[in-house]
């Protein structure tokens, strides 16, 4: 049967990995290619790259990085950040991406999900959502979690799935960066209504958090950035630990 996945996420700006990078003695690890190589060798099941640059030059550097990574890393690569059109899909897929993640671009124009799924297949389209509780409701936030769209997140997830998203990444703003564990109460709400694979993001702080996450069988993958970048959690050790505790995972 299909194994659970561990996915490190790399935010890339001007050709370097930023945010959560804290390799004090190993400065070079902020080089995206070396970092990707490190994750590949320690057993990551997939890598996510977010382009967080806005400039044209930054965009060019990002696709250069992507091409370099895809030339030496042979696991699935998902790319997100600034994906607003089919042309954006085309650009990153040609540079070696396997899946493309949409967030604010799909909020602005939901038909992008449908158009991309039709052209590249649902398996290629990932809907990424930044979700936060507001007055007892799960709300979708746009622009990197900065703007409350007022949209109901559960409805958006259902709509995204109906439009053809093949996978949903749920990032809980409430637990993101806190490292106190994944937002299981929130994930359960989505797990009850969503049928496509669900990727949990936000809150991982220790190995046990992943074990707790995968006890809920509706979750397919755990995504994190900082805890992996700082080497607080080593992916090889994490997967060994999960496997020893009964999680079906590639080691």
């Amino acid at each position, binding site marked *: *049967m*299909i*194994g659970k*996945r561990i996915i490190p996420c790399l935010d890339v700006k001007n050709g370097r990995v930023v945010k959560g990078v804290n390799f004090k003695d190993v400065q070079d690890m902020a080089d995206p290619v070396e970092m990707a190589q490190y994750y*590949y060798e320690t057993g990551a*099941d997939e890598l996510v790259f977010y382009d967080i640059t806005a400039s044209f030059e930054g965009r060019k550097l990002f696709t250069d990085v992507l091409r370099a990574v*895809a*030339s*030496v890393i*042979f*696991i*699935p690569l998902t790319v997100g950040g600034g994906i607003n059109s089919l042309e954006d899909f085309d650009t990153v*897929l*040609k*540079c*070696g991406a*396997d899946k493309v993640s949409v967030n604010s671009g799909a909020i602005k124009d939901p038909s992008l999900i449908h158009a991309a799924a039709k052209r590249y*297949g*649902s*398996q290629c389209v990932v809907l990424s959502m930044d979700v936060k509780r507001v007055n007892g409701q799960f709300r979708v936030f746009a622009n990197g979690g900065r703007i409350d769209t007022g949209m109901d997140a559960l409805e958006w997830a259902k709509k995204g799935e109906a439009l053809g998203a*093949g996978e949903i990444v749920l990032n809980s703003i409430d637990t993101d960066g806190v490292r106190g564990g994944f937002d299981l109460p929130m994930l359960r709400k989505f797990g009850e209504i969503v*049928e*496509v*694979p669900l990727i949990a993001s936000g809150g991982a702080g220790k190995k046990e958090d992943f074990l707790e996450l995968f006890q809920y069988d509706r979750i*397919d993958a755990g995504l994190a950035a900082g805890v992996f970048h700082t080497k607080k959690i080593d992916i090889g050790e994490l997967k060994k630990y999960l496997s020893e505790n009964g999680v079906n995972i*590639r080691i």
Partner: protein
Amino acid sequence: MIAVVDYGVGNLFSLMSSLRYLGLNCIVTNKEEDLLRAEKIILPGVGAFGDAAAKLKESGLWDTVIESAHKKPLLGICLGMQLLFEKSFEHGEYEGLKLISGMVMPLSADIHPSLKVPHMGWNRLEIVKDDPIFKYFENGEWVYYVHSYYAKDCRDGILGISEYDVKVPGLVRSSTGLIYGMQFHPEKSGDAGLRLLKAFSEIE
């Protein structure tokens, strides 16, 4: 030299990268003469069967692939593997290259409704019949799949399977000859996938 058939289906970036990473001499081509002079052929492919079969015919390489397959090792990957079979029932009924016996059928009809389609992600490949293709591969290593249809009634052609409620033929071979098919993506299956490609490159 390995010729990777380019008939306008899917993206060959990762496959070419993996072959080059292994140090193999390889080219992407849509020319008949390249397939004729190549030592081995890889037939890739993603998308829908009918569309891919039509494009391979349009490229004029349909018959060349069939003829070459009887003379040199051929590897079909993902949809390229499905094309090797007799027929596919993906959104209609389409003729395949008929190089390996079996039919391509929808997974959804045969698996428990709670299981997701496509069958996407990492799954273990269990060896059911030993073969030189497994020279560098250990039983039960993980490979990466993305597909909604699968080969059925392959009879004696199955070398490796993955469990997804049904036994999905992951690695197949024609009963005679050196025609191989991989339903998973070896170019996305980490080191285990690279080792399978390396073994294919050494098949003679």
